[in-house]
């Protein structure tokens, strides 16, 4: 149904265009629907059958694929687009990550790209007319020794000079931010200080996928779930379409945003990539009343943790350290991560672990993403996200849409080209070298 009362309550910089029939979400529409027991809410997105042909086919209905489709339509007016998802929207890493959103990078290429994403995060709820609960509660990296203080301050300074918010926090200040942290001198990893990105935080992962899906759909994008891409067809080095479980779909351009399955897709056109698929686990405690208001990460203790709005502690740590396509891990890493949480927060030993799960990480050889063109004309790659692709979601979609629409990378993703591994201009934030599991 068409939105009758123009919604005064939301000042969206880009109100959803009148052409489509979409209910504007607001307290008013909510109240009106309450009157008829919510029996008249329309679908958030359609479930169309695939058309025989599209200008652009995006493979992968995660945050990145959906954001790409959204910005293709919104920024480049390309609406004859399909997003092909083998399972359910957001069921990949978008639906299983610890939702930390930040841009606290040392290397320039990373810094500028992720900061663009931050800018989009801030406007996302309004841009999508869907509350993605972006919560700028701050992300604090704890330093546990002098070497880390050095490294973190160096990074903080680079951030500031790149125009990114960053602050150094003393132990006293940290105590006020997160009183339950372990400030004991006897701590195995005493806290020396911390690098805070005040405007960083978390967001509701599912809402990001759903919000972009709804926004893209309302602009005419076809979102096709339960449809797996099984092959990619090329002619004279040019992409012409994709084979799917719902038949062949012709396409002028194809953008691949499938995270852990990136190499699978490019194997279909005989391309090998500097990417390995690894397993990363995450977990939640039982919900408790607010006990942690900031996102805390500790490199030394291998743990990052935040409390969701529902009250669970959402946390994770290292990879399982072996190649895997299973969305389930093993116990050793859970032992490490949970003991880290207990070391950082001695009072948390009495919390209980409610659920654990895993996701398939597209670990690149330098720890930075690959977004750009490929040797095959009309075929574009978006992958290699490692631990960090959720925070990139809007920026990734934004530059990927530009790259696909213009057939050349945006300034922001030039440095993320596939060629960088041949030329040597890698972005190795960690300095770990060509070992995917080390990033």
């Amino acid at each position, binding site marked *: 149904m068409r939105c009758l009362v123009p919604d005064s309550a939301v000042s969206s910089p880009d109100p959803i265009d009148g052409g489509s029939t979409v209910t504007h979400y607001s307290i008013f529409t909510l109240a009106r629907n309450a009157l008829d027991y919510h029996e008249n809410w329309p679908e958030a997105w359609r479930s169309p059958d695939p058309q025989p042909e599209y200008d652009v086919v995006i493979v992968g209905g995660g945050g990145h694929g959906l954001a790409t489709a959204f910005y293709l339509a919104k920024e480049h007016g390309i609406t004859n687009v399909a997003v092909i998802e083998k399972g359910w929207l957001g069921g990949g890493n978008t639906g299983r990550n610890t939702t930390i959103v930040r841009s606290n990078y040392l290397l320039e290429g990373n810094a500028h790209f992720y900061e663009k994403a931050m800018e989009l995060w801030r406007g996302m709820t309004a841009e999508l007319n869907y509350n993605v609960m972006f919560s700028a509660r701050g992300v604090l990296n704890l330093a546990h020794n002098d070497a880390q203080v050095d490294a973190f301050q160096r990074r903080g300074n680079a951030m500031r000079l790149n125009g990114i918010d960053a602050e150094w926090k003393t132990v006293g200040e940290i105590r006020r931010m997160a009183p339950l942290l372990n400030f004991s001198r006897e701590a195995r990893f005493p806290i020396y200080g911390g690098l805070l990105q005040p405007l960083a935080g978390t967001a509701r992962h599912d809402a990001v996928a759903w919000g972009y899906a709804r926004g893209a759909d309302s602009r005419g994008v076809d979102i096709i779930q339960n449809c797996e891409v099984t092959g990619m067809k090329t002619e004279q080095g040019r992409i012409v379409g994709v084979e799917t479980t719902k038949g062949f779909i012709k396409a002028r351009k194809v953008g691949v945003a499938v995270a852990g399955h990136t190499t699978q897709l490019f194997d279909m056109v005989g391309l090998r990539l*500097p990417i390995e698929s690894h397993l990363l686990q995450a977990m939640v405690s039982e919900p408790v009343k607010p006990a942690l208001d900031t996102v805390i990460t500790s490199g030394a203790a291998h743990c990052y943790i935040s409390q969701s709005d529902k009250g669970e502690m959402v946390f994770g740590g290292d990879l399982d*350290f072996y190649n895997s396509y299973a969305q389930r891990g093993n116990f050793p890493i859970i032992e490490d991560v949970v003991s880290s949480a207990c070391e950082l927060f001695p009072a948390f030993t009495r919390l209980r672990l409610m659920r654990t799960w895993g996701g398939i990480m597209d670990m690149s050889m330098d720890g930075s993403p690959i977004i750009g063109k490929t040797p095959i004309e009309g075929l574009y790659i978006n992958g290699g996200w490692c631990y960090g692709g959720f925070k990139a979601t809007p920026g990734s979609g934004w530059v990927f849409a530009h790259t696909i629409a213009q057939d050349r990378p945006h300034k922001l993703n030039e440095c993320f080209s596939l060629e960088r591994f041949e030329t040597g201009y890698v972005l190795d934030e960690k300095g770990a070298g060509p070992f995917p599991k080390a990033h």
Partner: protein
Amino acid sequence: MRITCPWCGERYLSDFTYQGDATVERPSDPDKVSDAEWHDYVYLRDNPKGWHDEVWHHTNGCRKHFKARRNVVTHEIASTAPMSGELTGGDK
């Protein structure tokens, strides 16, 4: 996961270190290979979804490297062997 070291026998995951794709071979004479071949050796991987031949290091044991054929979807291990040996099993 329980992994059978060809020498020490079956041990738990936490005694081992994963050391990468066993099909990757270092060019015996790097100067003789093209930039592309060198790039391939350093950076490119098959990363198959299914049976995968891997190198593991028995870090908290005999500290030797060996090969394992492991299914990276189910984590089943078809066989392990010394680096000089042959892997069997799996549909590979």
